[in-house]
């Protein structure tokens, strides 16, 4: 006896759940019940679940009876001759959709030869165990699962043509790859997905070797000549927008070149690119902190006294300027209205991004790395035919990660590039390695994909033959230009007087608790003090009562609020955070007192 639930609601009980579930499935296959019904029996709880709700992920599987696939050879022939179609297969109870809970009750064979009497279903094709992104990884049945996950994640970070109408859009953080290419080694999914309409990478010529230690630990070497010819170039777009906000009392923001009287007026130089309407012209070359849209806002507080004073009429400057550390060209300017009817001005800045040291690249097998050096073509290693690779990949990345798929794509890419064809690299169904080797031999190359190479600097022949070929490489969206950060002095927090946080605001780099421990462990005591001097202050301490005194600027002498000026008061250097701590302890009704002593 088992409880039965339809869409999570208890409806009754059945005596023999196994038979009941089996019968329901029979009825569904005979079209006497809805095709969108799924039923499952959980023997841990002894409950039967019938699901009819929306939003369940379901997937099609071939039904198996007595160890025989219901999709017979005859049916396949009929499918080929278009006598039958997909809907017919479902109607005839050959293919059915299972949801996650019914999957738990079934035993699914991956492959037809694997079928046994216990199996209930068969995968339509082995690749269907993978999702869209993962099935776009070539030769992925030759790689580890963790690498597939990484490969899939990396594809989503690659630069390409994310939308064909990108010129009409104002996306933040948009990147467009110049001259994206269709991969040489493709899977069936590239066709289904229309990958050629939205490619996201380029076919690089790759050599697997080390190069002067500049490609150690997952870094790669790029050929300067390839970059000069446009390899892996991209464009970065950043939109800026300014709105003419309305305030109470009929006051509004105004877009226009600010007056010199404006509070917070920058310098004339900063506004030089603005046209009469206060908006920059297109194709202007802008540097950091150049004004893009000139804007002024009404004065912040209109107190009863200030209303009549001269200062009251002074407007505040609130122009939009190019972000700190960024530059580029003005791509488009748009003047429009937003939903509330306010005038809205948008400016898009375009920055060309050529590959530079620190930019991140990856193959489709989770083999990511950053550029360690850009090498002039003269110094690149070359083959007997004079070919220099676009990228040099370190062989140390292979054994630990066991990405055999990476090596196979290289070989397949080489065959594809030489014969001018795309190579099928579909998981479980790819062109086998032996075939690739054969074709390579026919094309007049060494069958194992290696080539004799020469040192570009000395001209000497390398003792080892270098594994070279072609691979689809992805330029990832993490580029150094977005991450580079340094600071000497800058803005501080109001409360603690310590530097503010974050790159965008020009914040400091935190020397944290553990980093502090390192300096202590090295005995670098004075260095540590200096490093923490960012909030250094001088406080006056009263010798008499041990509390903070103050400096009386009228009388030009320190004085204690409790003991007066006729006591010994000394200036003491300490961090502002410590002063704050003392003040906070005071707020707990605890009086911390400082006893001063001569150091020597």
């Amino acid at each position: 006896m088992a409880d039965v639930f339809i869409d999570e609601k208890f409806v009754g009980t059945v005596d023999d759940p196994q038979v009941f579930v089996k019968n329901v499935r029979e009825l569904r296959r005979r079209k006497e019940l809805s095709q969108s019904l799924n039923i499952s029996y959980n023997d841990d709880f002894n409950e039967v679940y019938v699901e009819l709700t929306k939003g369940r992920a379901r997937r099609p599987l071939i039904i198996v009876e007595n160890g025989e696939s219901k999709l017979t050879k005859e049916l396949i022939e009929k499918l080929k001759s278009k006598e039958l179609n997909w809907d017919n297969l479902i109607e005839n109870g050959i293919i059915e959709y299972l949801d996650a809970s019914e999957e738990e009750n079934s035993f699914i064979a991956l492959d037809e030869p694997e079928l046994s009497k216990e199996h209930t279903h068969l995968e339509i094709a082995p690749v269907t165990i993978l999702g869209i992104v993962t099935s776009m990884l070539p030769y992925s049945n030759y790689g580890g699962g963790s690498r597939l996950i990484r490969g899939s994640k990396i594809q989503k970070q690659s630069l390409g043509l994310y939308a064909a109408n990108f010129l009409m859009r104002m996306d933040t953080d948009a990147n467009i790859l110049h001259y994206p290419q269709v991969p040489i080694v493709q899977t069936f999914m590239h066709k289904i997905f229309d990958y050629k309409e939205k490619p996201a990478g380029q076919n690089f010529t790759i050599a697997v070797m080390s190069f002067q230690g500049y490609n150690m630990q997952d870094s790669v070497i790029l050929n300067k000549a390839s970059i000069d010819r446009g390899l892996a170039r991209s464009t970065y777009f950043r939109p800026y927008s300014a709105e003419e906000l309305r305030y109470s009392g009929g006051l509004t923001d105004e877009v226009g070149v600010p007056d010199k009287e404006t509070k917070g007026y920058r310098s004339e130089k900063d506004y030089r690119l603005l046209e009469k309407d206060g908006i920059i012209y297109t194709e202007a070359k802008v540097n950091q902190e150049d004004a893009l849209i000139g804007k002024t806002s009404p004065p912040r507080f209109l107190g009863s006294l200030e209303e009549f004073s001269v200062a009251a009429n002074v407007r505040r400057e609130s122009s939009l300027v190019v972000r700190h550390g960024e530059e580029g060209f003005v791509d488009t300017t748009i003047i429009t209205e937003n939903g509330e009817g306010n005038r809205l001005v948008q400016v898009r800045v375009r920055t060309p991004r050529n590959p530079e040291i620190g930019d991140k690249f990856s193959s489709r097998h989770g083999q990511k790395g950053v550029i360690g050096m850009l090498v002039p073509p003269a110094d690149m290693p070359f083959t007997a035919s004079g070919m220099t690779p676009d990228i040099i990949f370190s062989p140390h990345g292979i054994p630990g990660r066991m990405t055999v798929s990476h090596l196979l794509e290289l070989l397949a890419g080489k065959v594809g590039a030489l014969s001018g064809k795309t190579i099928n690299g579909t998981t479980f169904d790819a062109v086998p390695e032996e075939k690739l080797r054969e074709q390579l031999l026919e094309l007049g190359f060494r069958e194992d994909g290696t080539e004799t190479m020469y040192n570009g600097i000395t001209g000497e022949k390398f003792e080892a033959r270098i594994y070279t070929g072609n691979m689809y490489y992805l330029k990832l969206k993490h580029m150094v230009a977005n991450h580079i950060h340094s600071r000497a002095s800058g803005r501080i927090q109001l409360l603690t007087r310590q530097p503010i946080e974050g790159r965008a605001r020009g914040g400091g780099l935190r020397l944290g608790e553990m980093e502090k421990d390192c300096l202590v462990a090295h005995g670098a005591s004075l260095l540590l003090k200096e490093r923490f001097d960012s909030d250094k202050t001088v406080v006056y301490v009263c010798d008499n009562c041990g509390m903070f005194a103050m400096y009386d600027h009228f009388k030009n002498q320190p004085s204690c609020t409790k003991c007066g000026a006729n006591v010994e008061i000394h200036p003491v250097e300490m961090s502002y955070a410590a002063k704050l701590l003392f003040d906070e302890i005071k707020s707990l009704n605890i009086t911390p007192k400082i006893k001063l002593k001569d150091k020597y």
Partner: protein
Amino acid sequence: MTSIYDKYTEDLSAKVIESVKEEAEKQKLSSADVKKVLDRAKEEYKKAMISPGEAIGIVTAESFGEPGTQMTLNVFHFAGVAEMQVTEGLPRLIEIFDARKEPQTPIMEVHLKPAYTKDEKTIKKVASLIKEMTFNELSSEFSINIIKGSVESVLDNKKMKDYGFTRKYISNILTDQLKNMEIRESKRGFIFVLKEGSENLSEVYRMKEKIKDTIIRGIKGIAQVLPTLKNNKMVILCGGSNLKEVLQLEQVDENKTKTNNIFEIANVLGIEAARQIIIEESLSVIEKQGLDIDIRHILLLADLMTSSGKISGITRGGIMSEKESVLARASFETPDVHLVNASLVGEEDKLKSVIENVILNQPVPLGTGLPGLVAKMKTGNKND
């Protein structure tokens, strides 16, 4: 000869001098050579000493902290020696340094006197003497008679035979241990009634549980015994620990028997033994994980934990509460408690250690911050 060595007693440890002496006699060195050896030893000894101002505490913390992060990722926190589970890895290390009262898996290693390790049979016999056996194990059934308020047990005759117990023997032990009950022999086992009589059913139930737990043989708390070969010697590994009682058995070698319960060691053998066991236990954990931490870090930690005469862990209740500085204590955990308590007694912070000086942004008294310049000033004369 002795006079040469006497000169060095201040500079070298007794152990070093002793070993030099021994070796010198073996090699028949001349006194000039011995002096050379001793001078060299002195030099090396000085080199090995930690210089003043070295941040040994933080270096120790970092030396444990770095491999500790690796251990967290390691899944092998438990190891089994034939059915017996032992806590290892990070959980065990935390257990030791936090000075938990009871280990998660108490293990006792019982060594026997040489006379009893000769053949397997005697070892097994001793082992069975140690293992706790309750009356429950000898019985096949317990039943409660509600009307009479009595408990009836049925003896497992097969087990009785296996262990070689007689009814009389069991009966004697039971009457000895269950003094508030009247015990009568029945056909199949025993009948128990409370002497004072009882009508309360739950009282009878509790009585039943008490009867079940009566120890017939062995030592309380030892659930498992496992004679194993360790370093070519037979030892009995015990799941559960009761050092005090085990040491009273005459077969047990009281010099070698040990447990992994640090507090038990401290109570039975004293604080020095506890220090030793802290060192051994943590060292074995680290070695089993394939990590390498210098033993001097462990020595420092063990000394710190035991120097007060009691075992105190690296916790806010342990060595952290023993710190002199208010600010140092407050910066670790529960700052409000420390600050308020300090204010109640008017504590003074001398700012002698690291963290307080970091808070106030003053040079920490370590390394380059430790030495100060002492200048001898000549007074009065302008020409100086």
